[in-house]
């Protein structure tokens, strides 16, 4: 008699665990409206807000007079682990003292190599670069990924100290 009872017990236990499992998924489909967590991506761009510290791409903010804070000191180039940043500097005449000073000519940023590790931002002494929030950077032509961060015709702000 015992094997038969064990057999029936096994079947009953099996059915019970199966029904309990079905209860979990059954709950989620019956409360689908509030439990669905996915968002329709390209359609929700307006309401999409990234967090403050999100690392999207390195950017150099320019103010309304087209001025930035980069002195061309190459601290970021030294801190970068894999050569993503190339600083091309030039010598300009300082209007106040009349001596030649180093200034930034081109801040070349190879986005295709950047690992977004944030070390360049930490090493900048004048807070010239920040991590932007834009993450949509797919391009059809790879040359567009090599960017020059300082806008043409811009110069350093007057109050930035070395």
């Amino acid at each position, binding site marked *: 008699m015992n094997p038969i009872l064990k057999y029936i017990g096994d*079947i009953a236990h099996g*059915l019970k665990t*199966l029904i309990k*499992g*079905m209860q*979990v*998924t*059954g709950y*989620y*489909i019956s409360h*689908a409206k509030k*439990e*669905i*967590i*996915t968002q*329709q991506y390209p359609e929700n761009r307006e309401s999409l807000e990234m967090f403050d510290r999100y690392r999207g791409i390195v950017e150099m903010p320019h103010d309304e007079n087209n001025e930035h804070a980069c002195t061309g000191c190459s601290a970021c180039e030294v801190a970068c682990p894999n050569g993503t940043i190339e600083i091309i500097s030039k010598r300009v005449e300082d209007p106040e003292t009349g001596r030649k000073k180093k200034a930034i000519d081109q801040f070349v940023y190879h986005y295709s190599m950047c690992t977004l590790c944030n070390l360049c931002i930490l090493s900048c002494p004048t807070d010239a670069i920040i991590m932007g929030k834009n993450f949509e950077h797919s391009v059809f032509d790879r040359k567009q990924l090599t960017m020059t961060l300082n806008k043409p015709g811009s110069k350093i702000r007057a109050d930035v100290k070395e």
Partner: protein
Amino acid sequence: MAIEWAIIGLVLILFVAISVIILVYVERKVAAFFQLRLGPMRVGKWGMLQTIADFIKLLMKEHIITKKADKFLFNLAPFIIVTASFLAIGAIPFALGLQVMDINIGVFYITAVSSIGVLGILLGGWAGNNKYSMIGALRSGAQVVSYELSITLSLLAMIVLAGSLQLSEIIASQQTGWWIFKGHIPAWIAFTVFVIAGTAETNRGPFDLAEAESELTAGFHTEYSGIKFAMFFLAEYVSLFIIAAVGATVFFGGWLPFHIGHWQVFNAVMDWIPPIVWFFGKVAAIIGLIMWFKWTFPRLRIDQLLILEWKYLLPINLVNLIIVSFIALMGWYL
């Protein structure tokens, strides 16, 4: 005469096509809602045209035939499996009199014709000349053949109570109440076994080792591409519909509305809903239950699958049959 049969054939083909389009879309949406996501949303409003778009894409794909494949059998296998599904739809009653053939061995005919589908599976695996799809086809064939036994025996339990194999007679015998209520315990046992065996029969749900075997092969339809693959897919969904329809007819009263005793007003409201809506509602409920199984449970291994059939479902069915015959003799049913 010939014109009538041609029209009936056309209607059946259209019905099968439309029902598959709806079923595939419903499966994707139901799966998505179980998985806390939205499913197809872009093609048409709420993604309703998604299946049509997929179908058009499959139509445009190239037919690849492996070099040493047996061409005749390779092309024949999808047709066999689709034909088996079509034949079975002909015997299902959608409403009073809305049936292509009302033969006096209805249930027997449906199970016999569904068995032809096994041939399609085995031929599909053999003709591809690929030893892994052959293994998958053999496993799938073994599974389908074993579980047919369970389906037939569980239906037999209700036939004993209903007294006839003819589907319209079975429905007529449920005028006073559906068999799932009248035939209390043996009917519940028989329905549980029927639903489990039905999902195994159609290679679905937790029994889809043969085709979702992402370990080695994609099962017996590895070598198929394009529209022939779509035919295997179509046949799977049509046989799902057939299992649900047979279950609804034998256990839940087919197109009969839900009556409770002598509550006249309630019965009148139930009668107002057309019978074809009742039928499709019941079929939809059973299909929903089978889909619920698929998206909740992990897969069974092939030996566990066969152990389940031969050591658990078959003895339960036989014992149930004895119980039900006893009950029918003593008249202990409602």
